[in-house]
Every structure is written in structure tokens, then in C-alpha cells.
């Protein structure tokens, strides 16, 4: 009970912070919007999805990838925030208080989840504005679309625990920001997010198909009724919804354990 309470106190603190640094939230929004616009109009006409080079098909294919990439980018924010707390001595203050051990990190990841949800909401509106139409390829319904967003938030939440661990492991907030982003590029690009993974060179293809990130993208495409669902036999591609849930839970279990342990030992 006290653990939940402490986490909520910390989450509230981080949300107040975010509301007082609105530029961070705004930059967090501009980047995915730019990706939507750039990918849609620059790559749109030259990408072949399921044999079609229709820009409209690519546009509808792309959105799940952009959504998924956006939620994973919240990692960098979590990492930088925690590194900043370490740097400024706040983690010492928290560690000297009789509060639940994991609450500082849980609270932070909860606040990031709220921010991610807001970002995703704005991004979905932008996606609809540029012409994303759920049900473009296969029929869908409101519940399925919401389930897709639920999987995205779960993935985002899982990735913030990786960010938390990075934030606790580096010396400065700057290092946490760049360290929190760098690895996301290969993870999000060696996937089915922006291109049809079946067109990748053969050694890269299994990596993309077993990439936890791809599972969520594939699950979203399935739930949204988007085009370009990969017909691969790889288990995560064949059962993307289950794969997405399992991957996210495993990531949380591993990285939460590591991060909380690191937090306890944090020398500051």
C-alpha cells in the first residue's frame, strides 16, 4: 500500500515538473510529427508495401511504426530525468527517507506513461489529418484500435525501465539522453516499422522479425486493419499480439529488477 502511495507521490512530482517544462513535452511531440510528415511525403511514393507503391498504402503502413517508435523514445526522457535527480542529490534525499525502495523509479515511469499517452493522442490526431485510416486494409473496430494503443503504451512503459537503468548507470543527464537514444535507432530501424521486413537482406530479416519492437508494430497493424502485415512464419510475426505482451512483460521484469537493484546501491 505504501509502495503504491509513494509511487503516486513521485509520479505527481514528475508530472508537475513536466507541466513546468512544457518545452520538453513540445519537443517530444514535434519529432514524431516531423517523422510522420517526412516519411509520408518523402518516402511515400518509393516504398513498396505488399507489392504496392501507392503512397496511400505506405502512409497507412507507416503509422503503426511511427507510433511504436514514439513510445520507445520516452526511454530517453526517463533516463535523463533519473540521471538529473542523481546528479542534483535528490536521489540521496529519497534514499534517506523511509519510503518504498522502488517508488522513485516506479513513480517516474508512471509519469512518463502519462506523457507518452498524451503524445500518442496528439500524434494519432496528426496521423488522421494526413490521411491515416484505420481499417484501410482489413476491417477493424474501436475496441481493436484502443487495444492497439494499449499495446503501444505497454511497450513504452517497458522501455522506460530500460531508460531508468541507463539513467542510473551514467554520470550526467546529457549522457543519459544520448545513451538513451543511440540504441533505439538500430532497434527501431532493424524492424518492420518503416519498411517491409521481407524485403531485407536474408541475415537481417530474422533479426527484424524477432525484434520485440516489430512484434508490437505487427500487432498494431493487425488491430488497426493497416496494410503491410508481414506474412512471415516467425512466431512473433504469426502471433504478434501475444508476442507483444510477452516481450513487454519480460522487459519490465528484467529491467525493473536491475534498475531497482542499481537504485539501492546508487552511490550518487
Amino acid at each position, binding site marked *: 500500500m505504501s509502495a503504491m502511495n*509513494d509511487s503516486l507521490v513521485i509520479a505527481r512530482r514528475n508530472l508537475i515538473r513536466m507541466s513546468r517544462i512544457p518545452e520538453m513535452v513540445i519537443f517530444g511531440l514535434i519529432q514524431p510529427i516531423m517523422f510522420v510528415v517526412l516519411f509520408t511525403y518523402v518516402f511515400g511514393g518509393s516504398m513498396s508495401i505488399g507489392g504496392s507503391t501507392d503512397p496511400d498504402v505506405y502512409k497507412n503502413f507507416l503509422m503503426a511504426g511511427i507510433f511504436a517508435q514514439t513510445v520507445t523514445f520516452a526511454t530517453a526522457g526517463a533516463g535523463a530525468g533519473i540521471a538529473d535527480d542523481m546528479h542534483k542529490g535528490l536521489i540521496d534525499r529519497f534514499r534517506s527517507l523511509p519510503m518504498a525502495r522502488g517508488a522513485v523509479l516506479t513513480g517516474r515511469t508512471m509519469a512518463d506513461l502519462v506523457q507518452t499517452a498524451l503524445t500518442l493522442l496528439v500524434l494519432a490526431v496528426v496521423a488522421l489529418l494526413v490521411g491515416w485510416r484505420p481499417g484501410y486494409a482489413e476491417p477493424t473496430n474501436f475496441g481493436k484500435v484502443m487495444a492497439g494503443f494499449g499495446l503501444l503504451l505497454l511497450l513504452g512503459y517497458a522501455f522506460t525501465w530500460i531508460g531508468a537503468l541507463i539513467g542510473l548507470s551514467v554520470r550526467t543527464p546529457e549522457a543519459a539522453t544520448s545513451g538513451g537514444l543511440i540504441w533505439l535507432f538500430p532497434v527501431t530501424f532493424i524492424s518492420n516499422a518503416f519498411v517491409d521486413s521481407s524485403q531485407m537482406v536474408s541475415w537481417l530479416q530474422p533479426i527484424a522479425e524477432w525484434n520485440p519492437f516489430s512484434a508490437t508494430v505487427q500487432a498494431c497493424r493487425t488491430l488497426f486493419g493497416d496494410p503491410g502485415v508481414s506474412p512471415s512464419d516467425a512466431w512473433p510475426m504469426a502471433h504478434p499480439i501475444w508476442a507483444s505482451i510477452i516481450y513487454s512483460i519480460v522487459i519490465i521484469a528484467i529491467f525493473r529488477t536491475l534498475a531497482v537493484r542499481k537504485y539501492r546501491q546508487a552511490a550518487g
Partner: protein
Amino acid sequence: MPAAIKAEGLVKTFGDVKALDGVDLDVPEGTVLGLLGPNGAGKTTAVRCLTTLLRPDRGTATVAGIDVLKHPDAVRRSVGLSGQFAAVDEYLTGRENLQMVGQLYQMRAKAAKARAGELLEQFHLADAADRPARTYSGGMRRRLDLAAALVVSPPVMFMDEPTTGLDPRNRQQLWDVIKQLVSGGTTLLLTTQYLEEADHLAHDIAVVDHGRVIARGTSDELKARTGGERVEVVVHEREHITTAVDVLNGFGKGETAVEQHTRRLTVPVTGGAKLLAEVIRELDTRGIEIDDIGLRRPTLDDVFLSLTGHTAETKDEAGTDGETADAKGRGRRKEGAK
């Protein structure tokens, strides 16, 4: 009197650096112990061990009668920590900061809010209570940090260099707050590199160097160890230094220390003001013009120097340059006093 803080044989090693090398401490209830030492002496590590932030490699400690290693959570409920860096959230207002800390001490939201209001009044932060802490001055942040450590009025307080980096006015203000606190019966362990601060606030002083307590006593006891007073003379002309040293050696109980570039000579003496008058007459007879002369009682800086061979503000030069250590120490003290 029972000990509010007791440590025996604390050892903590980081890599091949022995930060604590067998530290014993005891602080009777309701008293203030000043932990005095240069940067890197182990003061902060000792505080971190006693406040459960670090686990010592060896040794035992109790705080408020509770075993630090066995029941860290119970210790956390009984201590307040005010760190070297003012650990407040700069984007939260003063009020929000204190309320958050209160809630994390497991107070209910309402009680935490009421307590925050009280503390803001007490620490003269009421006017700034609803401004983000990043708009606060350095002194205000320290006060807020201190207030955060006092949310539950813990019986035992730790302050790690509470006034480092503050200007004299703010330092004085914080000292007043600390004195008030202690007069209410709180036990305090305070670390400082300012000798003046330990002298001012602490009942007892433990001098720390290289992870060990090298001396312990009241300020007066430590001063007495260094041996009485000194006469300090600044001669006007550099050429007169040699003659002046002759004069001073005639009166002094020991060697005269010379600081060439400031033309300052210091010699230990006994005899007080009467002797000082004699020294002035003799210097005058010999035709030595002086810029300044005075009787100086030993400061804790002298204590530190006599105990460690180096001054509190410097560490690296210790022992490498014995002859001028005293002179360097004096120059250094001026910097430290700014």
C-alpha cells in the same frame, strides 16, 4: 547521557581508496559534533554510512539507538539529512517540495501540507512558498533543504557541509537556524571544512583526516593542544625581515615562521599583552617599521595544522613541503575565509 549516534570501526573502501579507515564516533543525545576535515577526508562517506545511503565494509553503527545495518528503514524514520548539495526539486515550489517529503515520510497529504506551511514560516520562506525553487537564492535553497530534513522533527540530524558556498550573511542566517534547532534538543552531526563553523556550532569536534579521527575534544581543548598564543608582525620593508626574526626569536618560545611575500612573521609566545608591548618597543628601538602587529589566539586552523601538518583547505601539498607549509597555510586561510 546515552549516545544518539555511535559508530565503531567503520571502514569503507572505494576501489583502492580507503575513504573510512576505522572511524569511531559517539555523539551524546542533544549535543552537536562537528566533523572537521579537508575535502576527501571521509566526512561525507561517514555521513552516508550513518544515514543508510552507503553500507560500510566493516564496523557497526547505531543511530537513535537503532542498528544502522540491521534496521535501515527504522533509522530512516528517525533521521533528517541535509546534504552538501541543496537537494530540492527546482521545478517544484518550496511548498510542493516540503509536502512531497512529508508524504514520503508517510504523513497524510493534509498533515504534510500543514507541516510544510509551518516550516516555510519558520525558515522565512513564506513569501516565496509558491515559487519554483529554481528562482530561490543559494541561501534560500539551503534553508529549504534544511526544512525538508526537518519535516518530521527527527531526533537526530545530519548536515553535510551545510554552508559550503554561501556568502557570509547567508551563512550567519543558517547558523542561527541551526542553533535554534539544537537548543530544542536535536542531536546533530555536522561536517564542515570551515574551522570557524565547527568552533561556532559544535560542542565537540572530531578532526578527520585520511578516513580516521585524529583528534577529538572541545574547541578549547583542541586549541590548548596547539599551545597558546602567537605574535604576528607584518614588517614594512622586506630588508627588515632578518632583523625582525632576531627580535621575535628573543621573545618567542619557538621558531619564528616567515612568509616572505607578505612580510608576515609569526612566533609562539606566552605573556600576552604585556609581552606584545615589549616586542613593539624592541622593534621600534631597532628601527623596524611595521605595518601591522597583533596577538593572535590559536584558531582551529592552527590546530589542524599542528595535527596533520597541512591545513584544512589543502591536502595535496601536505608533507611535500614541510618548511613552507605554515606559510602556505596562512595564505590559504585567507582564501578559505572569503
